[in-house]
């Protein structure tokens, strides 16, 4: 979808930058081979982009304008309706917002709403990201048991962060579509399905 959007809008100064928050290029390769992107399609094994943009799940999208300013803060949006039955969010309004932004320069989030719609991270969430980096490093060094302790700690510190809790599952030998995922999903559901929107509303009161 992003490639099609690039072909449609690339001449208007638009470029998608897709970033795979995966443990290795090999995990992302099948998706990239299928999409055949001519736009930048990047691999982020350290979750740098998630850390820098306060991302807690995928897919998360951000509009960044010509001057390097955020024109629409982190939010979960979809390019297709393939998994709509699971998340309930339609792609059409979002794709219309992208096209309108590219053509008119006007984001569907007005500039004065950016701060209000941004989820400011908590100290525990940033500690969780540091714990995740430590755990991932230990794992890569072969210290799997020590790594596991820090993956667990990271998840406890940042319960809403699926880039940590679900994103660490393949590394830790857990199936990200298996029982641990369904447990995470149940917990998220029972907690009122926290999202970028609900967390921003809570924290920016």
């Amino acid at each position: 979808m992003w490639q099609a959007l690039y072909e449609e809008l690339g001449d208007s100064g638009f470029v998608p930058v897709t970033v795979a928050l995966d443990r290795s290029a090999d995990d992302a390769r099948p998706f990239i081979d299928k999409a055949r992107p001519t736009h930048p399609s990047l691999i982020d094994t350290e979750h740098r982009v998630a850390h820098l943009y306060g991302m807690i799940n995928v897919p998360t999208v951000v509009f960044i304008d010509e001057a390097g300013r955020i024109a629409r803060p982190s939010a979960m949006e979809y390019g297709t309706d393939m998994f709509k039955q699971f998340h309930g969010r339609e792609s059409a309004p979002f794709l219309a917002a992208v096209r309108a932004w590219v053509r008119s320069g006007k984001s569907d989030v007005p500039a004065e709403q950016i701060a209000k719609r941004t989820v400011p991270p908590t100290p525990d969430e940033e500690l969780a990201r540091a714990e995740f980096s430590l755990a991932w490093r230990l794992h890569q060094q072969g210290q799997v048991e020590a790594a596991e302790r820090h993956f667990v700690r990271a998840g406890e510190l940042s319960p809403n962060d699926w880039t940590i809790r679900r994103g660490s599952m393949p590394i830790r030998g857990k199936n990200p579509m298996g029982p641990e995922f369904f447990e995470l999903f149940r917990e998220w559901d029972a907690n009122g399905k926290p999202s970028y929107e609900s967390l921003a509303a809570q924290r920016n009161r």
Partner: protein
Amino acid sequence: MAEHPFTILDEGRATSVAADLAGGRVRLSPNALERSLGWVLKPEGLCLGDVCVPIAGRAGVVADGKVDLQALAELLQRPLALDLDERIASLGASARERGEVLKGGIAPDFRLPDLTGREWSLGGLRGKKVLLVAYASW
């Protein structure tokens, strides 16, 4: 004082240094500090580029010519994940600073490779409207 090999991650960037680990503290020589985290011990305090943080009156940050990593993290209000047994620490970002940057609408720059190993930076795309899409196989 015995020094041990110790790994420091600064928002993901790893450096191996020698550290004094006596008493459950991680104490670094000024040289090890500069190599791992970029901070330089100067008469006016600890400095990173043009920014200096005074340490006079800050108990425990510098003693016997060494910098205490845990006290430094606290001084900078940055989170520190630490495993003394495995001799590794990871210094994270200040939640307050990160929140201010994002709420201020500033898109942080990053540099990442594609499948061919070519490096891309967000800053290199200045002048274009960028749709940043984070996804994953999981």
